[in-house]
């Protein structure tokens, strides 16, 4: 058991970096570390580990572990705003939401620059179903704290959940301004625009996402991960554009050479599913039949094995 301590710490650090929310695993590993008093040997990382363990413990309703971690953190950092947030989340777990909201209001009265508390308030409002109030408060929060990318993406998700996709694209455009190199937000923008029935804008943004992801891809490279999703998006847009005439609410111009784009996106998606060594990736037959017979013909498509 003692030999696995460094590997457990390594896994937990990995979860922190990648924002993974594997709460049960974190609590299982973290409880061992907590009991072994290994926290003191970590140095500065110990507090981040305790915070991670607190949140994971509340997630799986293991309140003893959560209280123990909170006690250690409060002892080390008395009066810290970050520890206040954790106490608030702990309060949300057992008290009714109104009590938690009142607690957050009191904290905001004493210190109105604590951005995390505003976010907790909004999270509680979303949880109890007061979406309109949550949207209003989130917009006010983003007026003050403009550079919070996470806030803009959350606002877009809130709008999308209410089917207001154009407002969602407006929120996402702010996120794109703040994090221009991030292909994931561009992809989200493209998919939201497609849902809002602005196909020319959607296809333009799908191609922008592909430009960022696959900038250095050669002709022989196989698309992996998020780029397959973006190529699917291009294919869907080409299909929509060829089946009906699409107007663009944002007055975006159509790309030239749509049939070529159609062919390219088909080829890219099918390459991803037909890569050698992956013999018959799951869903390959479905994808081939979805692409339709007319797209698979033609001597130029050389990849299909």
């Amino acid at each position, binding site marked *: 058991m003692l030999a696995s301590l460094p590997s457990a710490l390594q896994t937990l650090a990995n979860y922190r970096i*990648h*924002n*993974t*929310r594997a709460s*049960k695993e974190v609590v299982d590993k973290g409880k061992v570390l907590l009991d072994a008093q290994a926290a003191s040997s970590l140095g500065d990382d110990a507090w981040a580990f305790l915070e991670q363990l607190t*949140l994971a413990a*509340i*997630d*799986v*309703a*293991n*309140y003893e572990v959560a209280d123990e971690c909170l006690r250690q953190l409060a002892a080390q950092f008395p009066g810290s705003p970050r520890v206040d947030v954790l106490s608030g*989340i702990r309060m*949300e*777990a057992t008290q009714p939401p109104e009590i938690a909201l009142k607690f957050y209001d009191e904290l905001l009265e004493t210190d109105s620059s604590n*951005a*995390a508390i505003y*976010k907790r308030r*909004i*999270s509680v409002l*979303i*949880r109890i179903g007061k979406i309109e109030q949550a949207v209003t408060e989130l917009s006010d929060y983003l007026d003050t704290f403009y550079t*919070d990318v*996470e*806030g803009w*993406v*959350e606002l877009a*998700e809130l709008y999308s959940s209410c089917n207001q996709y154009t407002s969602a694209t407006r929120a996402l455009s702010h996120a794109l301004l703040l994090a221009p*190199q*991030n*292909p*994931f*937000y561009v*992809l989200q923008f493209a998919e939201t625009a497609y849902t809002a029935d602005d196909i020319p804008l959607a296809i333009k943004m799908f191609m922008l996402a592909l430009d*960022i*992801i*696959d*900038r*250095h891809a050669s002709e022989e490279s196989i698309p*992996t*991960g*998020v780029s397959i999703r973006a190529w699917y998006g291009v294919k869907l847009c080409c299909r929509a554009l060829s089946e009906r005439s699409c107007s663009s609410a944002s007055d975006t111009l159509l790309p030239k050479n749509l049939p070529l784009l159609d062919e390219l996106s088909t080829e890219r998606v099918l390459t991803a599913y037909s890569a050698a060594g992956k013999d018959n990736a799951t869903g390959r037959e479905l994808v081939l039949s979805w692409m339709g017979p007319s797209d698979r013909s033609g001597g130029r498509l050389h990849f299909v094995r």
Partner: protein
Amino acid sequence: MLERLFLLLATLFILHAAFSTYDHLSHLKSIGKPEGALPYDIILEAVIGLAMGILGASLNAAPLKEVTWSSEMKTRSIDEMDARLGFANYINRGRKFLS
């Protein structure tokens, strides 16, 4: 393995050339001709040491890491970009079966 050998040989050549130079210069001083030229084989030894040292250091370097933004983005996933931890909800139905 070969790299370490090259580096070691290069170090030895340079040290030997340095010692030979010191030895030769003190010999010239002792015979009263302190301006004499350095023999060409010491210079050759030093240059060969330099070349082997460059070769050994280049081969011994760590494997190259990716620098492009797109290669960095390939290591991320949609889930971690969508995490939005500031707004995360920790009160869920799980507590009915997990506690």
